[in-house]
């Protein structure tokens, strides 16, 4: 009776390629398109602009992308449910304003201000989530209303002067200062060791349990390329990139990079390794099935909006740090659309149920590279918007087509 019926075939590169292809056919294209796209964009811009591939521009690119990436990370929780949060951009503006007002006007230390601004963000998300989950108003409408509302709040908070400056050193350091080159390498080694051990322990655990493990060769290729590329990135960032070396030295990893990697690790853990994360995917895939499985669908929805707006608050901190201030346009104009674009370009589905934390980083870098590269080549803002819009459309198109291919 108990003959082994689900076989454990010996994995090979060929079977791995086959598995990948069946995943593609099932509507999961993975990270490959975004990675290849990023590579192509870097080659194109690198060959056309002498500035693009310099360490200075690279560091600049990372800090430009940072806020959009963090907002996109939050949005992925909401997108996974098949919902949308159009207010995430201005939520970051409002939370940034709360942070800056507490520091500059109230004289609070940065950590108290940060906790308060995240709490404000989570409260805003709770409100949005409650309206969507309990009253059943479509998230598109709720967050469109909030988009206007938050914009108004930000305008009121920014007040007559229009901008509130921030002079707290810690806040400014996040986007404007760097780890020392030695610390940069130490951080790189620690992160790489962490990543390698994590991968090895997973493969080992599965082998011990007698389950089909990821092909070791494939894992090795992926890991070596990731560790190698990030090693190159650290090397480049450790080069002197100051225009005036006598006056100021600029080298090392910007502080914002470890901040984002930390959020990536936490987010990936929550989505991939906890029951809560699993339930988010389940609600996005089939809310009725999730309900019948005993999952509290409403609470999951509310929690996703709370997380989204909470992360927007962190993006607000990054905005305040990069701009040295908060203005009525912080988190406005194209911020939200870039963040949605980043998530979708990275591979997160607008239809829900499909997406990973890393999508925010991959897609956020693609968006930032287009914005940065075209800016260096002297294209007008109008052309940049058109190209970014086209890339987003192509990604959403791929998403929709792959979904249709998997529909039964």
């Amino acid at each position, binding site marked *: 009776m108990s003959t082994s019926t689900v076989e454990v075939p010996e994995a090979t590169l060929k079977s791995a390629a086959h598995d990948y292809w069946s995943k593609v056919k099932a509507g999961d294209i993975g990270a490959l398109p975004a990675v290849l796209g990023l590579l192509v964009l870097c080659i194109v811009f690198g060959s056309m602009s002498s500035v693009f591939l310099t360490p200075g521009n690279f560091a600049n690119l990372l800090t430009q992308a940072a806020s959009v990436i963090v907002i996109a990370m939050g949005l992925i929780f909401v997108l996974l449910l098949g919902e949308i949060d159009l207010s995430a951009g201005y939520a970051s503006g409002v939370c940034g304003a709360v942070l800056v007002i507490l520091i500059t006007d109230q004289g609070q230390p940065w950590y108290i201000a940060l906790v308060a601004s995240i709490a404000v963000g989570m409260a805003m998300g709770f409100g949005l989530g409650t309206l969507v989950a309990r009253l059943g108003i479509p998230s598109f409408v709720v967050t469109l209303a909030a988009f206007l509302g938050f914009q108004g709040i930000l305008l009121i908070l920014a007040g007559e002067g229009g901008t509130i400056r921030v002079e707290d050193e810690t806040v400014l350091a996040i986007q404007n200062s760097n780890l020392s080159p030695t610390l940069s390498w130490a951080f790189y080694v620690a992160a790489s060791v962490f990543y390698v051990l994590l991968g090895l322990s997973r493969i080992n655990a599965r082998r011990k349990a007698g389950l089909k493990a990821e092909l070791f060769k494939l894992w090795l290729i992926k890991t070596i390329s990731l560790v190698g590329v990030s090693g190159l990135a650290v090397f480049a960032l450790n080069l002197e990139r100051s225009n005036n070396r006598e006056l100021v030295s600029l080298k090392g990893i910007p502080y914002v990079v470890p901040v984002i990697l930390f959020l990536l690790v936490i987010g990936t853990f929550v989505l991939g390794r906890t029951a809560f994360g699993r339930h988010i995917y389940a609600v996005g*895939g089939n809310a009725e099935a999730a309900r019948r499985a005993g999952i509290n669908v409403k609470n999951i929805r509310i929690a996703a909006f709370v997380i989204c707006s909470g992360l927007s608050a962190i993006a607000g901190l990054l905005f305040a740090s990069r701009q040295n201030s908060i203005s009525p346009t912080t988190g406005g104009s194209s911020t939200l659309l870039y963040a949605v674009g980043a998530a979708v370009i990275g591979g997160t589905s607008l239809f829900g149920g499909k997406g990973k934390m890393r999508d925010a980083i991959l897609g956020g870098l693609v968006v930032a590279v287009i914005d940065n590269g075209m800016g260096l080549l002297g294209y007008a803002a109008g052309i940049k918007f058109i190209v970014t819009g086209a890339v987003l459309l192509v990604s959403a198109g791929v998403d929709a087509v792959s979904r249709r291919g998997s529909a039964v």
Partner: protein
Amino acid sequence: MTEPILSLRGVNKSFGPVHVLKDVNLDVHPGQVTALVGDNGAGKSTLIKCIAGIYTPDRGEFKFDGKVVNITGPRDATALGIEIVYQDLALCDNLDIVHNMFLGREVKKGPVLDESAMESLARKTLDSLSVRTVKSIRQTVASLSGGQRQTVAIAKAVLWNSKVVILDEPTAALGVAQTEQVLNLVRRLADNGLGVILISHNINDVFEVADNIAALYLGTMAAQVAKNEVIPRQVIELITTGASAGVEKAGVK
């Protein structure tokens, strides 16, 4: 004959003025497939929803494993070991087979999901049902055929040491070969010692796999008879008219 694992006596259920179930009796034996047949509106769905705790009957006695029990909610039914496989399968397309089978009841190590334990247990369950059609249990449900999905839904139901499995028209949307697979699986559930309730409109399926047949007619149990005591024509008469020459009326013993 063995003692019934589940025994219903005099179950009544009304929705406002509509009296849907009238003094329904039903016995489900372990190791047997009990087919529940009846025309649309005969009360099949209401009856299984009462068993599953989704509806609470107005009157009537439930005996489970010889003891009188009170089922007031889905959790009570689950705790007893009663599982329903719904017609619309209640699977998440975007999750893989293991994730679906453990949805809402994940195995955890501390705060972390124990994927290895879940995968091993899922594979053991599929093996025990001799499921041969699924290539990898880590593929998403989106890539499965209708019959394979039904298989996963059934495997999900038997994962939890359940004693009674209710299948709501498991073959309604399937092709010939897949219907055969699922019916074999239904048979195997019973052979593994479970009490199986099979709701079906298809008399051929019923005669192929059931041990006994319970026919509902306008909310009353027309008869519950052993399969080999009746012929398909008699069952169709029971479904359409509530009586058939030569078949004893239920509860008139």
